[in-house]
């Protein structure tokens, strides 16, 4: 077997992201489909406006969260496959040299669709477990006729089967493209020498140079770290600021998804940074660099991007809520107001800073434990 079950287990990040995407989309799209069935029972203008606002909310929430998380899963999958091929170049090169075709090797990568199947199926089931509570809250307002939960096989296929097939195919196609490298180059691990060089050669201190070089080489990790913090900032602030726009359940759910996504992606990205730099860290230790200097060179380059992600997430949630109030809920009789919540932003910033530094501290400790002998085992 080219890709083992153990390798699939490492893709827990994709499983969690797909779970989060499907639980949100399944709840709101199912509600959307069920809400449409009561359209003929709506009699008053106020109810019709509320009905339209509910439909728009369901579409916006599922579209935005689903789209955003779909993009993240695509990037995560490509990152995992690229990383897998990078770390298994020798084996794959030997297989090609022995006569396996590119297609023959690439087709085995379809198992990368497995975590998506598990994640989406769990997400869909969890959504159905939470739906009674969501419907109860929505029905409680009394603006609309009671909406009953129905099972929509099409939705199940669209949220569970379609993503699984899509990601399995994407994995095969992406690995097929990546395996274009000649067998000998794979065996000699030459394809990993794609170095992104600096356009300007400045005379910086070594640690600064290494820090900047690390960020240059791993642009996908810059994306992940920025995105993780973006999710955290946007979703936690949004859930605290939308008390008039959504139910408590929805707020808690959004906050939970934001925190889980941020922590999972941040851990995956940081683990990847540290693993990719194991040899560099070991060499630095052999030369006499301290653990603090190693951390500074390997991890500190991503900190500005993390804070940029926070600023971006804060701005995004402000624009999104402002749009919800001015566009989606504009026809409601009770005019809703939304103002940027500075205390919430400050508290979120402090929590984020503490969480981020805690994760970095954990990785610094892990780096300290790296044995200098590891480099000799190469």
């Amino acid at each position, binding site marked *: 077997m080219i890709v083992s079950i153990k390798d699939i287990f490492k893709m827990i990040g994709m499983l969690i992201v797909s779970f989060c995407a499907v639980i949100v989309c399944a709840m709101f799209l199912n509600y959307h489909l069920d809400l449409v069935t009561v359209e003929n029972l709506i009699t008053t203008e106020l109810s019709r406006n509320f009905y339209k606002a509910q439909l728009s909310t369901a579409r916006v929430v599922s579209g935005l969260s689903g789209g955003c998380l779909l993009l993240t899963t695509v990037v995560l999958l490509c990152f995992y496959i690229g990383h897998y091929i990078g770390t298994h170049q020798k084996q794959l090169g030997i297989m090609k040299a022995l006569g396996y075709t590119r297609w023959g090797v690439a087709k085995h990568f379809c198992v990368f669709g497995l975590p998506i199947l598990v994640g989406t199926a769990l997400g869909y089931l969890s959504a159905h477990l939470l739906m009674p509570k969501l419907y109860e809250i929505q029905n409680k307002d009394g603006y609309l006729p009671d909406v009953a939960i129905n099972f929509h096989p099409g939705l199940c296929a669209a949220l569970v089967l379609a993503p699984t097939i899509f990601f399995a195919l994407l994995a095969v196609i992406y690995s097929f493209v990546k395996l274009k490298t000649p067998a000998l180059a794979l065996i000699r691990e030459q394809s990993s020498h794609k170095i992104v060089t600096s356009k300007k050669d400045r005379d910086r201190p070594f640690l600064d140079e*290494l820090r900047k070089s690390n960020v240059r080489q791993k642009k996908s990790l810059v994306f992940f770290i920025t995105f993780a913090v973006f999710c955290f900032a946007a979703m936690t602030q949004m859930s605290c600021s939308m008390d008039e726009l959504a139910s408590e359940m929805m707020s808690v759910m959004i906050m939970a998804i934001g925190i889980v996504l941020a922590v999972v992606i941040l851990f995956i990205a940081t683990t990847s940074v540290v693993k990719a730099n194991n040899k560099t860290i070991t060499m630095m*230790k052999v030369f*006499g660099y*301290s653990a603090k200097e190693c951390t500074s060179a390997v991890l500190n380059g991503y900190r500005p991007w993390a804070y940029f992600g926070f600023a971006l997430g804060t701005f995004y949630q402000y624009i999104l809520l402002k749009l919800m109030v001015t566009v989606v809920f504009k026809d409601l009789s009770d005019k809703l107001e939304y103002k940027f919540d500075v205390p919430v932003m400050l508290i979120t910033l402090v929590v984020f800073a503490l969480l981020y530094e805690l994760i970095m501290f954990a990785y610094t400790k892990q780096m300290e434990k790296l044995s*200098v*002998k590891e480099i000799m085992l190469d």
Partner: protein
Amino acid sequence: MIKINNLHKFYGNGESRTEVLKGVSLNIKDGDFVVILGASGSGKSTFLNVISGLEPADAGTVCYDDKNICEMNDTEMTLFRKDTIGYVFQQYFLLPNLNVDKNVKMGADLTKNTNYRSLIEAVGLADKKKKYPHELSGGEQQRVSIARALAKQPKVLFLDEPTGALDEATGRMVLDLICKLQKELGFTMVMVTHNQNIARMANTVISMNSGRIVEEYTNSSPQSAYEIAW
């Protein structure tokens, strides 16, 4: 002076526990060129790693000017490595994302050596200082690794099979370069090799077998890298 006394090192646990160094003792004089010879599995690389502080000993002492590195904690060991030793590996271990100049700077910045570019010139790579490791040949990469180790101005340079991955012509050139730099800069040099001919270049030769020193002798007239057989 490096004083090594009754050094023991074990690998594994329980029934698979193996004694790799069996009470090795040795004195290395300042400025000496010591070659440690031995077949695969003789314990020579483990000995080099332990005396250079890369691996802890299980028993015994390794004293650099009366400071026993076996008793040092992590912080002291980091400082010791920074101030005292340089290391050249068989596989070079250059940082792939940085060019020659920045790789050598890795060593130079530790001791604030601003004159490190003279070492790049000394190893004959002045015209390749903007090149990246993958753009260099094996011999060139090893020369960068030597310049990097010397840029931190170590008191002792440890070399683990520095010519193991090189062809004869490149190997001779690298050894010639190392010896010239040692004479010029005066550091102590300890080299592990399985090539018995290289031993003719050293002042002191140590032969190891099964975790013990089985022979120790001094060369009255060491030969150059171009005089020895390969």
